[in-house]
């Protein structure tokens, strides 16, 4: 019994912390337009492109380089070839559409291999430690988005 009680404390604390950060759109409350775009910011706080660049490259966060080439990160070795190159991507999509692709790629590209970074219902058998969690936080999505907007 004891370990459960201990485990509950941080969980309760996290719920309070989430509620406290007013203005964060919960994953299930994100509103999509019919083309998959999401026009409302997930946090109301402007994204930080410098942090977004880090999240983009981080293997345990965005890990975007696993699948996308991006010349702006040429200091990183090995860019994947599964998705399109992201050079100049901000010229091909507006901000709302890029946010939509990050939150849930499948709303834009049906059946895409690209993970949905801010969605709770992912594949079956998700590992316990990732259950009920999004791959990126709302602010990390906004940060990556701000970074993508610099790729012109």
């Amino acid at each position, binding site marked *: 019994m004891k370990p459960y009680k201990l485990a509950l404390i941080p969980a309760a604390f996290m719920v309070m912390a989430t509620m406290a950060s007013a203005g964060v759109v919960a994953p299930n409350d994100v509103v999509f337009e019919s083309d998959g775009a999401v026009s409302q910011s997930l946090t109301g706080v402007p994204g930080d492109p410098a942090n977004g660049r880090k999240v983009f490259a981080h293997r345990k966060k965005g*890990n975007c*380089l*696993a*699948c996308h*080439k991006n010349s702006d990160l040429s200091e990183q*070795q*090995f*860019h*994947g*070839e*599964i998705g399109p*190159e992201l050079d100049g991507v901000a010229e091909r999509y507006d901000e709302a559409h890029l946010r939509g692709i990050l939150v849930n790629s499948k709303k834009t590209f049906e059946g895409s*291999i690209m*993970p*949905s970074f801010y969605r709770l219902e*992912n*594949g*079956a*058998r*998700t*590992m*316990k430690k*990732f259950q009920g*969690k999004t*791959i990126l936080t709302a602010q990390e999505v906004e940060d990556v988005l701000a970074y993508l907007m610099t790729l012109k």
Partner: protein
Amino acid sequence: MKRIMTSAMIGGLVAASLGFAAQAEGTKDSLVINGEDGPVKIITHVKNPPAGSPLPELFSGWVFRSKETRALEADDFDNPGMIFVEQAWETWNTPDGKAGKSCADCHGEPSSMKGLRAVLPRWDDKQGKLMTLEDYINWSRVEHMGAKPWKYGGGQLTSMVALISLQSRGMPVNVKTDGPAKKMWELGKKIYYTRVGQLDMACSNCHEDNYGKYIRADHLSQGQINGFPAYRLKNAKLNSVHARFKGCMKNIRAKPYKVGSDEFRALELYVASRGNGLSVEAPSVRN
């Protein structure tokens, strides 16, 4: 064919700009392994797969590895996996269990096992289940030797699987998918195409839709199992089929099925059938 051409062309451009030497679609070299009993030709590419195959062409994982890694497999003297095969050969000749018998006492030379690897897993009427090579070895240990079964996926069992697989080296994989095996094959197929984990991917997303392309530094293969057990440079040991499945599931943040579970047996049969026609290649060398 069209899809492969295009991906190869795009891949080629990316690879060139990043300074990769490898061809996106994999090497065109052929594999002949220098073994103790002379050279063995390995079928690493099947141009016309059996009817009903979901793949336009079949490739062994060897085709997508670097030149250096490929070379390690081309000569048994250089293949680090052969050390484990030699250990298993010793075990083969060593009595164990209450009956005081060795494998050799009943089966003679390991070469008596020729052909077995190519047709496993298979449905066994007597056992009333789908049997992998691991299952047969453990069954024999318990039934005939009065010994304890080895841990599924563990070093001793995997090494013995390698020794027995080696006896079929070069022979085309030819597992049966119909008859009583059909149900398990269907289950394996379902698992193969089901998206799992927080990253929400199925085996097919990587190994059917995107083989030949790089995912970060990894050159994606078709995820064939004709080369298993595989010696991986990454962990410097022989890896069982189920251990590899487990690794891929963990990478997509999915809870893997248990090594030695019926789900992985079913998946093993299904994946093996996707490689019907490729040569048994064990023990292969991978990164």
